[in-house]
């Protein structure tokens, strides 16, 4: 049994082994369907995310596990039950793994200290989203074979993005160069210490990138004065058709979804020839099967 609380704490060889394992879970290779037979995977979602929850659900089912879904709506959390109360109650029903999404950074770490089952972080606050980073890395590895020497540009609201943090750690661990680009108000301090290069100029960073990963822009950042307007954001940091043309030959475009079409990415780019967005989604299930397999064993 092992937790996946974040990419932090995992070595390169462990990450590689996990990605290799995901290879075996791709559609058409049904060699592992019984791995979790008789076991229970609990989906514990305090924040709605149909996409991630469904992906873990399918992954668990595909391995033969029974899945228990728990979402915050109508739960006892609103009646003053603490996170640990809830987690211990879920634990008492006997799952092998708890897949957990929570709006507070570090919430899965707290639970992991107080329960005996494995905790998989399916996104905590603005901290990490390790399964997303692993499926992104998997998708790139599928293209390139290896990430060594490749440059990935992560674009947008770095500060509030758990996808950006996990990807930074994961891509760096796998040998890629990571450039973070966005407005200064959305760049927290200390990113360089985590191994990133930081720029505020998309147009100078773009031609070097082998992959551009656009992040979803939360529209409430306007009202919090991180940004003056979506219009200005699109002008400075939007991945539009003109910019797409200046990308390296063969460079790919990624997005963790859901997309604000026309804000962080133009529809023609999201659906265009460089886009691997749908591959990311379909790889998600295979990668999450591998994660469940590693954490439940």
């Amino acid at each position, binding site marked *: 049994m092992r937790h996946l609380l974040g990419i*932090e704490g995992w070595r390169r060889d462990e990450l590689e082994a996990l990605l290799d394992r995901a290879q075996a879970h791709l559609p058409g290779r049904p060699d592992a369907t019984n791995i979790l037979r008789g076991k229970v995977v609990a989906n514990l979602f305090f924040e709605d995310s149909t996409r991630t929850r469904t992906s873990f659900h399918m992954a668990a089912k595909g391995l033969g596990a029974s899945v228990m879904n728990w979402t915050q709506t109508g739960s006892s959390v609103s009646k003053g039950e*603490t*996170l*640990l109360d809830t987690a211990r109650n879920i634990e008492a029903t006997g799952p092998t793994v708890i897949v957990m999404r*929570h709006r*507070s*950074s*570090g*919430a899965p*770490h*707290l639970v992991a200290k107080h329960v005996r089952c494995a905790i998989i972080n399916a996104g*905590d*606050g*603005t*901290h*990490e989203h390790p399964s997303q980073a692993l499926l992104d890395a998997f998708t790139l590895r599928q293209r390139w074979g290896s990430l060594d020497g490749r440059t990935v540009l992560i674009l947008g609201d770095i500060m509030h993005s*758990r996808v950006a*943090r996990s990807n930074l750690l994961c891509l760096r661990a796998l040998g890629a160069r990571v450039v973070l680009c966005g407005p200064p108000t959305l760049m*927290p*301090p*200390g*990113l360089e*210490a*985590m191994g990133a290069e930081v720029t505020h100029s998309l147009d100078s960073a773009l031609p070097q990138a082998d992959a551009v990963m656009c992040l979803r822009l939360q529209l409430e950042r306007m009202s919090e004065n991180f940004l003056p307007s979506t219009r200005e954001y699109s002008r400075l940091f939007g991945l539009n058709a003109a910019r797409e043309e200046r990308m390296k030959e063969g460079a790919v475009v990624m997005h963790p979804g859901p997309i604000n079409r026309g804000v962080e990415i133009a529809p023609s780019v999201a659906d265009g020839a460089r886009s691997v967005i749908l591959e990311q989604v379909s790889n998600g299930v295979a990668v999450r099967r591998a994660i469940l397999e590693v954490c439940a064993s």
Partner: protein
Amino acid sequence: MSSTVLFRRGRVIDPRNGVDGVRDVLVRDGKVVEVSEAPLPVPASAEVVDANGKWVVPGFIDLHVHLREPGEEGKETVLTGCRAAVAGGFTAVVAMPNTKVVNDNGMVTELVLSRARAANLCHVYPAGAITKGLKGEEMAEMGELVSAGCVAITDDGRPVMNAALMRRALQYSTQFGVPIMVHEEDLTLSAGGAMHEGATSTRLGLRGIPASAEVAMVARDLVLLEETGARLHLAHVSCEGSVRLIREAKRRGLRVTSEVTPHHLILDDRAVGDYDTHAKMAPPLRSDRDVQALREAIADGTVEAIATDHAPHGVLDKLVEFEKGINGIVGLETALGLTLELVHAGVLTATRAVELLTHGPAQAFSLPGGHLAPGAPADVTVVDPTEEWTVDAHRFYSRSRNTPFHGRKQKGRVVQTWVGGRKVFENGQVGPGKESR
């Protein structure tokens, strides 16, 4: 019980009176009578304390303590807080007014004082609120608070965001001569923040509180201080920028004093580790660079006092998501050990360390005690500077256990605490004192 005590052959460290050497100290009827380099004869019926190899120092004074009574007696009471105080070598504490009935009127002040009299362990000096209900809207009756016994005026825990109100409060306080004590935090800059803004908050994905949230308010209040000629005391200073401003203000003769907590001197923001709520406090643990600046500032006299900001909380207040965790840690029973860490590390001399716990705070709030000259109150702490021990939160006298220092090895420990010539703590045992109800 004898009212005469002779402390024999201890190393007396009394910074205010320039004493550091082996002395005999004779106290009688609650006062210091004589401090002698030559051995004194033992008076008839005197209790003799063999202080050979020990430090005999003025009782420690803590300018910043939360006793939680009235209102949150499950966390602490005046009595349990006083027990924790004397166990930590403190003979006087200043009680913050942010209780669950706010100390913004004389009745609450009197209640705290009567509980303290009943506890009968150490001196408790209440601090009254700047504004009614700590709401930051209307000034509390400062005159009544001072005449009821408040020694300082503060909305501690909250800043006074309204600059005009702060200016008036400073002006108004000058007629009473009491210090205004401030918790410096610009709430628009700290909003949503759970820890210091820096590489660690970025790694953990937590919204940061920038140093400017404190420094900008320090700058504002020093400007207001200069115009009003009041006395300003800055609570729990945590950053380099604040220290720089204080240094400059003092050079220009402003009446500003300040305090730093032991935890801000010992830990930096990395102590949050993997979301340890025991390292969550306001102001937050800052960067290593800030810690170094604070250490310089206590050593060079820019900052007068080490104060604990003793903030008891229940277990469930900390056993939650980091962002939801309540701020604060208990401090009375770990203060000396942590301060001595700085002595062992060569940051402070023994004399300066004692001064920061005694004369410095006494002077900042014009309190009695803090030294051992003849005529001074016989508030005395005896320290064994060599005893090695391990912090065990389960054995605290405080009703609460919230500390990041549980299990930490310490060298140097309080062995006796005397208040007004009466022994109230010895070898781990607190003396008399009972609940007043």
